[in-house]
């Protein structure tokens, strides 16, 4: 069994059809949430910070928030939304009465989560560009980082969603996983200036750290070999998790 692209796209189309109906209401909070962070922390707190990581605080903060927006976009989709479709709406049971296979369901859902991440991240990027906070053209590289961030957090979230016994576990996922990642992944302060060397190695395990570093490299137009490690981490971890998710989705949908 393998993925059939047209069938995976049919799954994607289902979600897109639903989103088309509600996007006007959905997209506004996506726009505003990172903008509030930008204003409160970037401009408010930033007024007391002379420089951070070699730039103004606002310039330091902006690229990380793009990744956070993408992370949130993907995460909501593959946690609550997938769980509701799986357990309550039984959408996948209906799909599996057609030529759609579990692999197609997984591929379609991950692709959709990447799409949502791209909408969230892309919107915020446009805001930054309008404020003159995205140095063009080099910052445009971040448009590749956004879908990769989506892919990574879609893969993590989908494995989690397929493995938990009930919906209450998502509060752990958000408060004990995503929130600390948000706070400690180089978004608000440079980890390498605050952590002792041995801890820096441990910090390399944090998933959000890698997209944030890539985004910052794009905004600064400075690419070091670390970029390759970040790319390898994002794609490698996503791949391994998706292999795992593929087994899980088959176990959940067929027996």
């Amino acid at each position, binding site marked *: *069994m393998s993925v059939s692209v*047209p069938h995976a796209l049919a799954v994607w*189309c*289902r979600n897109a*059809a639903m989103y088309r109906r509600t996007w006007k209401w959905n997209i506004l909070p996506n726009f505003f949430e990172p903008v509030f962070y930008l204003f409160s922390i970037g401009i408010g707190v930033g007024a007391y910070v002379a420089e951070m990581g070699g730039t103004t605080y606002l310039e330091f903060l902006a690229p990380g928030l793009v990744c956070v927006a993408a992370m949130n976009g993907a995460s909501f989709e593959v946690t609550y939304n997938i769980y509701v479709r799986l357990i309550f709406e039984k959408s996948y049971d209906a799909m599996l009465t057609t*030529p759609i296979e579990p692999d197609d369901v997984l591929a379609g859902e991950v692709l959709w989560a990447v799409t949502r991440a791209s909408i969230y991240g892309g919107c915020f990027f446009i805001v930054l560009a309008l404020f003159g906070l995205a140095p063009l053209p080099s910052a445009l590289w971040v448009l590749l980082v956004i879908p990769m961030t989506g892919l990574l957090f879609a893969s993590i979230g989908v494995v989690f969603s397929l493995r938990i016994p009930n919906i209450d576990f998502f509060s752990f996922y958000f408060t004990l996983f995503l929130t600390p990642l948000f706070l400690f992944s180089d978004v608000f302060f440079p980890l390498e200036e605050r952590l002792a060397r041995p801890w820096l190695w441990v910090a390399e395990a944090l998933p959000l750290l890698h997209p944030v570093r890539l985004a910052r490299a794009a905004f600064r137009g400075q690419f070091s070999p670390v970029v390759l490690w970040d790319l390898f981490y994002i794609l490698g971890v996503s791949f391994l998790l998706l292999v795992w998710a593929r087994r899980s989705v088959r176990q959940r949908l*067929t*027996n």
Partner: protein
Amino acid sequence: MAIKEISAASTIVTARSVSKKFGERVAVDNLDLEVPARVCFGLLGPNGAGKTTTLRMIYGVTRPTSGTIHVFGMDINQHLRSVRSRLGVTLQQNVLIETLSPKENLRVFGRYHLLREPELSRRADELIDFLELRSHANVPVRQLSGGFQRRLAIALSLMNRPELLILDEPTTGLDPAVRLALWSRVRELRARGTTVLITTHYMDEAQRLCDQVAIVAAGKVIAAGAPADLIATRLAPETVEFDCTPQEEAALLDGFTGASRRLRTGQRLMLYVEDASVLIERIRNYDRGDRRPVFVRPTNLEDVFLALTGTGLEGTA
């Protein structure tokens, strides 16, 4: 080889010695089933008899622990996509996108079968008419009544013009008018050559709709055939029902051999007989007059079902 080909052409579903175990629990136990082409076939049985598991194995979502299933002459586990492209399934629970209209739901579902425009819209339109959804075709599904939603669920499973339509308890919880309307749609489909495989708890539904039925209990087929034949061979044409105590029953029916079977639920006793008048006379004699209400009616599939699957205390048969 020639025989095999012929049977493949006239038989839509063939299950041979199919078993399914979930851990220690046996859901389906060495089941044999043959669904001929162009009939309405009923799979009947009490809750937990293995009906839904059997259906899931037929469309390939559940894999048998042992045995083989062929649909359209193809082994389901080797030709999943091509078999599923030719069948439609209405699940027990309606799976609808509540924020979208019936029309949009149909188009989303049609894409699962890779239908493209203009066929996608044309087919959605046809089904909106066929299942009488026109008046609410553009209203969000969450505003529709249960009957509308059920009809839409059935419409979805018809998007790909299936040769085999599988309906898992299609009329549970629907009002009588909607049930009647659905039955007529099912008959119409069958008349156009669609094979229909249906599970139901309602024996009147099975009797009126199905050309053939299989009664399943504890994962096994315990009786199969046309409803009328089952009634004739398993029971008797007339059913006599009345209330009596077990002591009265023993005295009243002492030496009586006319009943093919007796069934007791609480005070109610049912006897299946060739000729009810003999028994009625016996009851009148015992009561010394017309004192006890006695009902005589034609035996139906429900009686066969109850007699075969048991209702607890059963009289000597």
